[in-house]
């Protein structure tokens, strides 16, 4: 039995917003195993980015536990946390906003090395930076340039080089490709896959592009309004979705093939995602769900294992 690298247990992140409590992430639990990619999907505002940031403690959690190699990182002191942070890094969505425009590429990529005092002399540090740039498909010549001299795809490569600087085990990729053009997206995804093989990385991959998530992830979790609706291996989830929300979400992705796209039956959901401020303690999807019954509007369903390694939070999961 392989031990999970990351175990998320009942994490909660609430924000005070004046009108009440915004429950961005509410009781989410899952495991991520070494060298796998766990995809987290959902629509905007469902809490997937907040969940990711809470997991690596960029946000202080409201509740829950997060075990990294068996250590609950939420109990670590500030100082211990700083050491722990070497193990996990993040790649951000917007390659334009996540690089300091006044720093050269070398300064950007070497910053984590300087913060953690990895090398004593600048020669070694520079060698490491060049090694990292080459790893992501850039070269030495790029190291003295500034971010504005690069295209979106190249900037994302710089962000990836920075994330790899400390040899982390776990990388949170928060929509790393959604700001890029399709042809460049494929470049970055292929790079992420290659790095995973070469360096044995574990990814938490967040995206709203479901076909890309299916392609890159081993297992996928579907979030809706702060709750986890369904978790399964990516083939299983896409071939045999059980939660009504997952079904609707999958059927809404337009398939780039006119014959298939025009002949399939689509589930069009009514309305919009409700507000996460002071939500009722029922199934969050109940108001939009075509299968909702009385109990759905009263009690929030627990995430249960319906089939082997296939978890669903739905009162009617067995009827689906």
């Amino acid at each position: 039995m392989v031990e999970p690298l990351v175990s998320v247990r009942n994490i909660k992140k609430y924000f005070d917003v004046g009108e009440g409590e915004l429950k961005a992430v509410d009781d989410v639990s899952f495991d991520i195993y070494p060298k796998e990619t766990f995809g987290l999907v959902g629509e905007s505002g469902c809490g997937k980015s907040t969940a990711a940031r809470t997991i690596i403690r960029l946000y202080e959690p409201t509740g829950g536990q997060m075990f990294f190699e068996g250590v609950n990182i939420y109990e670590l002191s500030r100082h211990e946390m700083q050491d722990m942070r070497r193990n996990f890094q993040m790649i951000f969505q917007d390659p334009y906003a996540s690089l300091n425009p006044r720093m050269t590429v070398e300064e950007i990529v070497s910053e984590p090395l300087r913060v953690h005092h990895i090398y004593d002399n600048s020669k070694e540090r520079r060698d490491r930076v060049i090694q990292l740039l080459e790893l992501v498909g850039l070269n030495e010549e790029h190291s003295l340039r500034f971010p504005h001299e690069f295209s979106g795809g190249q900037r994302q490569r710089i962000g990836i080089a920075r994330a790899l600087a400390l040899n982390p085990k776990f990388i949170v990729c928060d929509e790393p490709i959604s700001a890029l053009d399709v042809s460049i997206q494929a470049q970055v995804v292929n790079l992420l896959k290659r790095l995973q093989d070469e360096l044995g990385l574990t990814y938490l991959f967040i995206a709203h592009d479901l076909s890309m998530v299916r392609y890159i992830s081993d297992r996928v979790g579907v979030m809706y309004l702060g709750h986890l609706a369904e978790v399964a291996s990516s083939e299983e989830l896409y071939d045999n979705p059980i939660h009504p929300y997952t079904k609707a979400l999958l059927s809404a992705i337009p398939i780039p093939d006119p014959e298939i796209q025009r002949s399939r039956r689509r589930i069009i959901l009514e309305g919009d995602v409700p507000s996460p401020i002071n939500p009722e303690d029922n199934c969050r999807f109940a108001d939009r769900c075509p299968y909702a019954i009385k109990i759905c509007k009263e009690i929030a369903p627990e995430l249960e294992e319906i089939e082997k390694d296939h978890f669903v939070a739905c009162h009617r999961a067995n009827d689906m």
Partner: protein
Amino acid sequence: MEKLLEVKDLAVSFQTFFGEVEAVRGVSFHVNKKETVALVGESGCGKSVTASSIMQLLPMPPAFYKSGQILFEGEDIIKKSEKEMQQIRGSQISMIFQDPMTSLNPTMKIGKQIVEGLVKNKKLSPSEAEKKAIDMLNLVSVPQPEKRIKQYPHEFSGGMRQRVMIAIAMVSNPKLLIADEPTTALDVTVQAQILDLMKEIQNQFDTSIILITHDLGVVADMSDRVIVMYAGQLMEEGTVYEIFKNPKHPYTRKLLGSVPRLDMDRSESLHSIEGTPPDLYAPPKGCPFFDRCDEAMVICKEYMPEREYHTDTHYSCCWLNHPMAKSVAEGSVV
């Protein structure tokens, strides 16, 4: 089929501090009545500039027309004065934009924004205008329209705002609707709602649609014909089935190969297109896709290929499809 819009050899440039950017370089296509034409390409390929020049929405200067005609029902709209354009915009040709938040006026009530154009052109009375605004919100399925017309854009969700944008665009029943990335800012479930709404409205009013998008799934869903654009030029055009089933241009093939499909094996790698599009300050004289193309030949660098027709509706601009390509290819592949 009757042509509603015909764009002939359109070239649009921008004069900037660093020189001239040739954003659109000799583009010709047409749109028939009641059909949806998708304009596909990556950012910076000139698809939005093409659309904005049909509406004459480009700021001039810095933009200027280098050549071409835009014939709308046979009349060249490039030659129209600003006053004449104001009569055409909104009533004959309408446009919806990508970001429904920034394209609505945050300080004006929704009802007033919907009928603003009509009130100006047709001198509606306040009560007629209100009735029209309510009708339009009903048309785009916004619930409680009587209450909604008195609200401001910030009280609407993203999907609802895009419905309002469509209501504004359709208020005087235009013949041509230009939709510039209408669902890019929306979530997939909301996107599905909006695409359905656009189809319904098209059926009801026989509107022609120019759909600008980079999402090939949306193209497959919505369009009758597809035009593939790259670096300011048209690379390939055909019916949606011809483009998806039998793409002839290497760029189209690569574009289709770079998106993961739901039925794809995860161990397959995606066909990324290495490199980046050319710089339009100094566009290449040959095929602009030359340096990213695996099948490029010597001639590709020197001369831009002409249109090669595969069927009446399907052409591509690629030397590989030239009748003499085989003999050229031998021994001269770069």
